[in-house]
C-alpha cells in the first residue's frame, strides 16, 4: 500500500528532478520543494544529505532581514 501519505501533487515540472525515494520523503516531511534543491550526487541527483543541507539553509536567518 502507499503508506497513507497525503499531499496534493506538485505541479508538473518540465525538467524532472533526479532523487532517491528517501530524499523525496525527507523533502516532503520537511516541507521542502525538492525541485529547488541542488543535488550533489552523481548527475545532480538529490540525496538525503542535500535535503538536510537545504533544511539547514532554510533555517539560517536571511541576511537582508537584519534591521
Amino acid at each position: 500500500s502507499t503508506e497513507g501519505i497525503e499531499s496534493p501533487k506538485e505541479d508538473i515540472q518540465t525538467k524532472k528532478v533526479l532523487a532517491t525515494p528517501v530524499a523525496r520523503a525527507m523533502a516532503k516531511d520537511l516541507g521542502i520543494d525538492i525541485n529547488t534543491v541542488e543535488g550533489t550526487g552523481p548527475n545532480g541527483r538529490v540525496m538525503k544529505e542535500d535535503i538536510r543541507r537545504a533544511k539547514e539553509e532554510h533555517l539560517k536567518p536571511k541576511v537582508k532581514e537584519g534591521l
Partner: protein
Amino acid sequence: MTNKLNLIGAVNQALMNEMELDETVVVYGEDVGVEGGVFRATVDLQKKFGEKRAFDSPLAESAIVGSAIGMAINGLKPVVEMQFMGFSYPAFNQIISHVARMRNRSRGLYNLPMVIRAPYGGGIRALEHHSESTEAIYSQIPGLKVVIPSTPYDAKGLLIAAIRDPDPVLFLEPKRIYRAFRQDVPEEPYVLPIGKAKVLQEGEDVTIVAWGAMVRDTQKAIKMVESKGIKPELIDLRTIAPIDRETIIESVKKTGRLIVVHEAPKTLGVGAELMAIANEKAFLYLEAPPTRVTGFDTTFPLPKGEKHYIPSPERIAKTIEDVVRF
C-alpha cells in the same frame, strides 16, 4: 479491404491468411479440425485446406507440443492449440525442456518456427482450470516468446508475426474479449512487431501497463480518473517475453509513476518484473512506489466468486488515484 472482426475472427483470419500463403503452416489440436475449435478459432480451416493441414489430434497435450517440435524441425510451421491455458501443463515438459531450448541446445541448428495458441484468462464463468492466467510462468523461460493481443487488429498482426517468427511463440488469447467488440481489420495479411509494446494513450501523471483483457478494464478506469484531472499514459505490453523495456522505461521516466495491471496472481506475476525494471532503469525518476493491481494470490475462483478476482475498473481507478496523489 477491411472487415469488422472480433478477436476470435481475427485469429481465424490470420490462420487463413498464413495457411493460404505458406503451405508449410499446419494447424492441429483437440477439436481443432472438424469442429473448428471450441471457441471456433480454427473454423473452416479444414474445409479450406483439407485434413492434412488442419486436423484433430488425440487428447494429449504433451504429444501435441512434442510432435510439433518434430514437425518444425522437419520443415513445417505447426500452429497448435492448447484448448485452454489451464490444459497446457501436461505439455509443460515439452515446452520448457525442448521448445524453448532446441535452438540453443543445437547452437542454432534446429530452430522451431512453431506457435502454441491458447485461450487464457477468466471472466467467462467457466469451470475450474478454464480461467487462469499463468503467463508469468511461461514468460520466464529463456528461449520462448510470449505474446498477448488485446484487440482484433493486434491479434491478427501479432499472430501472423508469430507464425512467421523463426522462434517458438506462445500466443495467448484473452478469451473474455474474444467476442467483446469488433474492429476494422484488413483482409490482407500484415504483421505487427513482436517485442514491441504499444502506447495506447499518452499522459504525464502515471504510466499504466496492462495487456490482454485487462487493457479494456484499464481504459474504463482511466475514463473514471480523467474526470478528476488525472492524465495517465497507457501502455499495452503485447509481448510479455521478451519485454519491451525501452517503451516502459521511457514512459516511467516521464511520469515518475508506474502501475501494472494484471489478472494473474500478485506474487511473482509479470507486475513484479516490470516494477523491478522500473527500479533498475528509472529509479531516480520515481515519485511514487511502482504498484500493481492484480488477481489475488489464490486459485482463480469458480464462477460465483470470479467477480471478486479480476481487478475491476473501480479497483484500478482507486489505485491510479492513490499513486498519483502519493
